[in-house]
């Protein structure tokens, strides 16, 4: 008699668990997965605005002939290849400096470096735009210091416009990644460092031989997150440079937005391009996991 009663108790627990899960799961299903499936179906249709008709994989082949889209893919990878490694190295260095037990005002420094993450994406992009404007602070400084004769149009030259976006991204996201490293560093026994010190290891050796290997899972996590974030870059492209000059700083997401809301709407094509980004993220994450995971 006692056994079935126990069963009901565990079943009761299970049911309670499911009851708590159900609303969230249902909401995710309705809000997230169903739209995703609808978007996938949409990506196999073409047409202007509301007049859609099936077209097979036309949208997927079309994007490889779209010069502006290919340009946006190139731009996005430029940001990815230059910005993500610099940012992660910076974050790692900052984290190991701030992890030093003897450092004074640690809390203050940590807060200062993390603070950019608390700013709104649009607000900071607009502030960077005005910083690098023809009559902005940076030009003013350079001219007053005699480095430049006259203001340099940072945002209307391809190379400098891209660099400005990268600088902006570094400012915004380095602190965010640093926090992950800091929390990862808390899990490394301080005695390991002390042992290394006794063995006569230099700061550089400690960093490469102890910190980096032990932080590997965290580094992998941040690398995947940053890659994912960079491939979906939108706010900076729209607000800082508006994709210009001549589409040389436009990102994939920005182009998808233009295609849906600025141009004659072609939602099928936009959906297809979104799935292209998804596939890219999946491939890159998979590669990073393979490279990062040396257990086998």
């Amino acid at each position, binding site marked *: 008699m006692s056994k079935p009663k126990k069963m009901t108790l565990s079943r009761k627990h299970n049911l309670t668990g499911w009851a708590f899960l159900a609303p969230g799961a249902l909401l995710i299903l309705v809000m997230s997965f169903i739209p995703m499936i609808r978007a996938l179906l949409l990506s196999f249709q073409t047409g202007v605005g*509301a007049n859609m008709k099936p077209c097979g994989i036309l949208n997927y082949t*079309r994007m490889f002939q779209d010069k502006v889209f290919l340009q946006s893919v190139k731009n996005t990878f430029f940001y990815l290849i230059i910005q993500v490694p610099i940012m992660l190295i910076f974050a790692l260095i900052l984290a190991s400096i701030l992890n030093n037990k003897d450092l004074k005002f640690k809390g203050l420094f940590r807060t200062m470096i993390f603070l950019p993450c608390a700013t709104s994406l649009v607000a900071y992009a607009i502030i960077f735009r005005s910083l690098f*404007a023809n009559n902005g602070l940076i030009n003013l400084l350079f001219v007053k210091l005699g480095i430049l004769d006259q203001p340099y*149009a940072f945002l*209307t030259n391809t190379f400098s416009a891209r660099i400005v976006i990268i600088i902006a991204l570094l400012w915004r996201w380095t602190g965010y990644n640093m926090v992950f490293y800091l929390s990862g560093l808390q899990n490394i026994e301080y005695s390991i460092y002390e042992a290394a010190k006794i063995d006569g290891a230099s700061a550089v050796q400690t960093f490469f031989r102890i910190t980096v290997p032990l932080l590997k899972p965290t580094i992998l996590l941040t690398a995947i997150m940053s890659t994912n974030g960079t491939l979906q870059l939108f706010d900076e492209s729209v607000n800082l440079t508006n994709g*210009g*000059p001549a589409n040389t700083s436009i990102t994939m997401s920005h182009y998808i937005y233009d295609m849906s*809301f600025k*141009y004659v709407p*072609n939602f099928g094509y936009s959906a297809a391009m979104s799935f292209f980004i998804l596939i890219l993220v999946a491939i890159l994450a998979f590669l990073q996991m393979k490279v990062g995971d040396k257990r086998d």
Partner: protein
Amino acid sequence: MKRKILATLLASAMILSLAGCGGGSGTEAPAADNGGAATEAPAADAGAADAGTEAPAADAAGGEETLTVWCWDPAFNLNAMYEAEKVYQKDHPNFKLNVVETPWDDIQTKITTAATSGDLSTLPDIFLMQDNAFQKNVISFPDVCADLTNSGIDFSQFAAGKTAYSVVDGKNYGVPFDNGAVVACYRTDLLEQAGLTVDDFTDITFDQYIENGKKVLEATGKPLITMQAGECDLIMMMMQSAGASLFNEDGTANIVNNDTLKVVMETYKNLKDAGVLAEVNSWDEYVGSIVSGEVAGTINGCWIMASVQTAEDQAGNWAITNMPSLVGVSSATNYSNNGGSSWAVTTSCKNQALAADFLGSTFAGSTELYDNILPSGALATWAPAGDSDAYGAPSDFFGGDAVSAKIVDFSTKVPSNITGVYYYEARNAVATAITNYINGSDLATELETAESTINFNMGQ
């Protein structure tokens, strides 16, 4: 126990508010539907039962003379709608407007959502649409806008260049509203330093403009005009000043063999190379350059004057005239258009005849309305409004000139051109071309790239 009660209270409050949200939108729509259907049915019944007397039918409908309107600027077009409501209420005491402030980007998103989902009931009766987006929306979402061609509105009294924005396949879908006639604004005090007056800039060509600009640059060190890099406002204004477009009549792209466009591109590059035109990065920088006195003038739609006038310390030092004309183009004029918007009536509107009559007897039939909204800067594109006394009043900011009358006069002379459905695509492609051309690449190649980009976008 206390905590339990609190939790229950909180939970029930949440559920109630959720239900409230859901219920609110759920019940509102049917109610409106019922209302419309309920009043319509008796009216029809009355008509059927007593065919001779139409009065009861009209009365029954009279109770429901409310229209919902979406537009975006409280000081400008919302105000215009309220004034129009007052004017129309004189003859139609039961008439009421429900004006909802909705930014244009939101209106565009809502139209897109409503049209793609096929449920147009979420749309208002009348909404304001950007002229440049008119063709795109009418063709992409053919079910949204009602055809106003035979609604009794006299479209011939509007400036032809303005009405053309809202005409698709020969049918009128919009009632023109605000004026986008191009004005050239100049700082007379700066021109004086170069020994020039506004008269030296009136009815001139771009060649003369560049010559004058060099003098101003030499005397004051300031350019004559600033433009936002990567946007091609000036290029589009130059194109329309010669009645030219980036598209052919049949909707195909007209870039590579477009001689006017070539002249426009070369003129733009000459302006830039001479230092007469300076490029800035963003809209705020553009307005900033005017207000802070870094530039001796600008050329834009007349709505720019609202921004110019925020520089109160420069009052009396500004003057307006017409824009320079292109050289070597036979159809060149000194008049063009940039921006502006038009009223559209939706097909989901229950009382389209009323909406059309309202627009027809206010925005297309009342000088009183246009006089009332003139102080807010809303200039008419409706020709009879320009004859009113209010338009002859001098403006102290612009050196005592009767600027309103001048602009209405400009607007009637604006050549009409083809906007094209793929306007924004073409604009972007041309903006890319001009950026590369200024940076030294070959014009013919750039135009070819632009045309192939547009053709690619159209070929879906």
